[in-house]
């Protein structure tokens, strides 16, 4: 099980703060593809990914229990 956290416009689009996904041993790219096809998320290509609160790369592999966050371009400050 992987937890996917949603923020900002993604949270508004999907209407949820987080999604639980049955998945393990998939890459971040694969996770992105799966989210893209399950939800209407064209903007996911512009989204950074963090795993357990650290920025991650597309090739990084996910394990069960990981907390992934979709991080759209930030606008703090």
């Amino acid at each position, binding site marked *: 099980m992987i937890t996917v*956290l949603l*923020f*900002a*416009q*993604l*949270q*508004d*689009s999907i209407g949820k703060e987080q999604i639980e996904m049955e998945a393990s041993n998939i890459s971040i790219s694969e996770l992105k593809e799966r989210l893209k096809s399950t939800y209407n998320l*064209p*903007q996911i290509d*512009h989204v950074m990914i*963090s795993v357990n*609160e*650290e*920025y991650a790369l597309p090739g990084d592999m996910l394990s069960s229990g990981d907390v992934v*966050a979709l*991080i*759209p*371009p*930030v*606008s*703090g*400050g």
Partner: protein
Amino acid sequence: MDKVMFDIVDEPIQVGELIEKVTRREAGAITTFLGTVREWTKGRRTLYLEYQAYKPMAVKMLEQIGKEIKEKWENTEVAITHRVGRLDLSEVAVAIVVSSPHRKAAYEANEYAIERIKQIVPIWKKEHWEDGETWIGDQLEQVPYPDGEPTKIGKGDMS
């Protein structure tokens, strides 16, 4: 250090408390940056803002910025607090304070901090305009996603 130097808060930011966190005898200069809610942006009127953060990661990223600053500018102390939730006009969204023996480093490190916040800290701003609302996608490149997807790309408007 026992003091919380990097924080995300829901309540109004107390600037004086932040300044106290970095005050010390080695310092001869303390710079502060406050990002405040501006009413007008390119002719469009803001009524209020709403900030959302991925809190634990945002704190980690602020800590990382602090670490970068200490590596780049010798003998600096940094404290940063970002507020989330609803903010009215003129309220402080972010406060950055830097102390240093000499002023040049205090100015440079402070400006570096706000630039890095806009790059790596997972915090998002929703503009509540007079005529609608928008999550601001990227202040540096100004990519707004008004309906949850990119529709237009404008020139950066950095506050």
